[in-house]
């Protein structure tokens, strides 16, 4: 025991720790940089890059670190690169860590909800901004445990540097054991030193996790959570929440304006729309997935101020059509112009890069609301609206926040401005999503089945928000929906789609009450009997 304490405090072993820590730090830092590059290459849309990254991973994940250390130390000098032992060991560890870190990064990036990325795109965010603002913050939080593992494993792997003569802890322990024959005291002492090092990494990991934990903004709880017996409190349903939900629908929306309270004058609206400029022009649009046609020579013109309801059975091409208008998806042939401008095609007719398309989207102003809300999960309601304004429209923080608060008030959610999406009901989330889409004042708002993912009792609050937009703002909207009565109420025109083509279209109250086409009739019949079936 005395010997154990002697070796535990021996400067010779303690200095060995410095080398162990240095190799680990250099290895992890180099591995992180290289890992980011490799992950970027693998996720790139250029095939050659991802193939190169794969080959690298196969080689450096598939060979033992000890060989890589010896290679860096003994083989590189043959081509004129003579590294010191510490440099060679750090390089080998970095080369070895890189593919593991790359896979952690890639896995967590891919795991970020695709819908949020589509929402970012639809808001006119370039792929780079989407990556930095939406994907990386969420991916980083989920990759911390895996990175902690990786750091501990790198710490232990650093002991292999002893084969290339780095005077780290393991090498010093074995040398000391050889000279003194005090095998066990020495290895217990160095084992304890490794444990302390690994323990510090674990502590660091916990600290970072707490810092990144969105659900614990309370600084007092951050310390409490360090205690091993602390358990995350089960999120008890707020006593107010139940009542809040019930009252919210009507109560929290601000009182309707004068326009929204009087019945629509359909004839007057139709007259105004007939003479207004076209907002969206679609000509002979075709698109197929794996040889199956989804859109089949579709023509459609939506005028400024017009509200068009897209109806039709699942798979009829409603969603695809909306995503094409916004250029979230490419198509095979045909053309789409939004306010006279072709999205995604340059003046010379060439297809633009994703970043250029994003800028065009923001410039033209096409907002989109998704079936699954697609709010940015790591941002509060206010930040979901204000963030894109700052990143895309270059608004100042003050302008963006003011605009966000104003829109939240309009959708009746001022009291939830600081709530995270996951703490809001579906209806609330969708109202925030609508506010977010409206923030940059889009010329056209596309709504893709905005109430399909909602519980029945939450549908109305969202529909009411949309109705007011049509009536009070005169916003141009294309809505795909299964809510027949809502469509009849709000839409100027109903368009019935089947098999990627328009089967019937006309004034909403006409098509939805007295359809001419047998397929429309059949669809409406089914909807009347069992609305869930068609949803």
């Amino acid at each position, binding site marked *: 025991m005395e010997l154990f304490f002697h070796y535990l405090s021996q*400067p010779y072993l303690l*200095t060995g720790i410095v080398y162990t820590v240095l190799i680990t730090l250099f290895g992890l830092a180099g591995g992180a940089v290289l890992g980011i590059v490799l992950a970027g290459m693998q996720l790139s849309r250029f095939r050659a890059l991802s193939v190169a990254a794969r080959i690298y991973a196969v080689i450096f994940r598939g060979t033992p670190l000890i060989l890589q250390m010896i290679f860096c130390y*003994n083989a590189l000098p043959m081509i004129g690169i003579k590294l010191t*032992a510490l440099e060679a060991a750090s390089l080998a560890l970095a080369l070895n860590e890189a593919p593991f870190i790359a896979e952690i990064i890639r896995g967590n990036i891919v795991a970020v909800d695709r819908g949020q990325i589509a929402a970012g795109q639809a808001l006119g965010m370039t792929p780079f901004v989407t990556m930095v603002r939406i994907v990386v913050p969420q991916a980083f939080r989920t990759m911390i445990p895996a990175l902690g593992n990786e750091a501990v494993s790198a710490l232990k792997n650093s002991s292999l540097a002893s084969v290339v003569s780095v005077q780290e802890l393991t090498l010093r322990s074995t040398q000391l054991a050889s000279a003194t*024959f005090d095998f066990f005291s020495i290895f217990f002492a160095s084992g304890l030193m490794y444990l302390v090092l690994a323990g510090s990494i674990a502590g660091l990991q916990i600290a970072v996790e707490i810092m990144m934990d969105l659900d614990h903004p309370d600084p007092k709880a951050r310390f409490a959570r360090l205690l091993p017996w602390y358990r995350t409190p089960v999120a008890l349903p707020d006593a107010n929440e139940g009542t809040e939900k019930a009252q919210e629908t009507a109560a929290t929306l601000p009182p309707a304006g004068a326009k929204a309270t009087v019945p629509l004058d359909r004839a007057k609206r139709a007259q105004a729309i007939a003479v207004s400029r076209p907002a969206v022009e679609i000509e002979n649009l075709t698109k197929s997935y794996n040889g199956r046609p989804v859109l089949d020579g579709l023509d459609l013109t939506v005028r400024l101020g017009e509200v068009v309801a897209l109806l039709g059975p699942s798979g009829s091409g409603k969603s695809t059509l909306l995503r094409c208008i916004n250029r979230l998806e490419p198509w095979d042939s045909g053309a789409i112009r939004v306010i006279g401008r072709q999205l995604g095609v340059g003046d010379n007719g060439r297809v633009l890069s994703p970043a250029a398309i994003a800028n065009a989207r923001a410039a033209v102003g096409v907002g989109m609301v998704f079936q699954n809300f697609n709010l940015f999960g790591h941002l509060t309601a206010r930040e979901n609206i204000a963030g894109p304004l700052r990143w895309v429209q270059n608004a100042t923080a003050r302008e963006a926040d003011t605009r966000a608060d104003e829109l939240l008030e309009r959708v009746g959610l001022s009291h939830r401005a600081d709530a995270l999406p996951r703490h809001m009901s579906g209806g609330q989330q969708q109202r925030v999503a609508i506010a977010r889409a409206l923030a940059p004042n889009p010329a056209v708002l596309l709504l893709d089945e905005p109430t399909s993912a909602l519980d029945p009792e939450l549908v109305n609050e969202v529909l009411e928000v949309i109705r007011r937009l049509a009536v009070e703002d005169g916003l141009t909207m294309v809505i795909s929906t299964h809510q027949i009565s809502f469509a009849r109420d709000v839409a100027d025109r109903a368009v019935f789609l089947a098999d990627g083509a328009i089967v019937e279209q006309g004034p909403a109250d006409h098509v939805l009450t007295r359809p001419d086409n047998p397929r429309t009739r059949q669809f409406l019949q089914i909807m009347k009997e069992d609305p869930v079936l068609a949803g």
Partner: protein
Amino acid sequence: MKTTGFKRSLPLARSAAGAVFAANMVAAAFTGATLTGATVAQAETAIPAACADLQAKYPSLKGKTLVNAINPHTPGYESIDPNDPTKYIGFDIDLGEAIGDCLGFDLTYKAVTFAALLTTLQAGQADIVISDIYATVDRAKAADFITYLKVFDGVLVAKGNPKGIDGINTSMCGAVAAENTGYVEVPLIQALAAECEKIGKPAPEIQLYDNNANCIQAILSGRADTYINDVNTVDGAVKAYPDKLEKATAVTLPYSVGIAVPRDNVEFRDAVMAALTEIQKSGLQVELMKKWNLPEDQLETPKLVLAE
């Protein structure tokens, strides 16, 4: 002798850990100063007079600092100093310092596994290897050797020699031998397989480790029955564990211990050989052997072992 270039690292290594100290270590690690780690005690004996002539003949070595790759797990030949682990001590260390003093160069040390001694030299990560390595024709493919000691091996066994092993012969059939990767004893023991088969016994089994301490531990833990290596190493182990180990016998092997130098540098080889000759002539080598308790009759006049 005084070693230069380590004045900085020695007090550092002795001092307690602290911020300044750690920062210095980082700086030192970058410059490579402490990489080669520890340095030696002093070779206190006077330099032979003829060395002045050699320094005049080989002026390019004077004032240089060369790297000596060692496997510091062989107390008596090379190991760290238990009293000051920043230093390497042993007969090989003293001999290397004496050669350096004679030719006017300093030595720093690089600790590697036994099997990596010659590869480190080949990769240019070391300039010379003086580490109780036997000069064989096979190894001469990787380096030129200048011999300086005859080889006497000892057979280390557990106290009482339960398997009755009495040499590298059929007494080892069915026994487990611990050896280091790359040791010359390995092929000798492997060659016993045929003889054992002839008398209807199982072949000896070999466990490979990468330093003496592990081989000795293998016997102490009962994993191996014997470890055959340099007799002085075996004696050292018996001295450390007198209740658990003993030397069964000593055997002579047809090899010599040699200094390994790069194959493509004849001038350096000649210089080292000339210095070694002078050190033997002046009686310095015998003096050093006495200091480290090596039997005097182990001394061998320098000769070259080169690839065929």
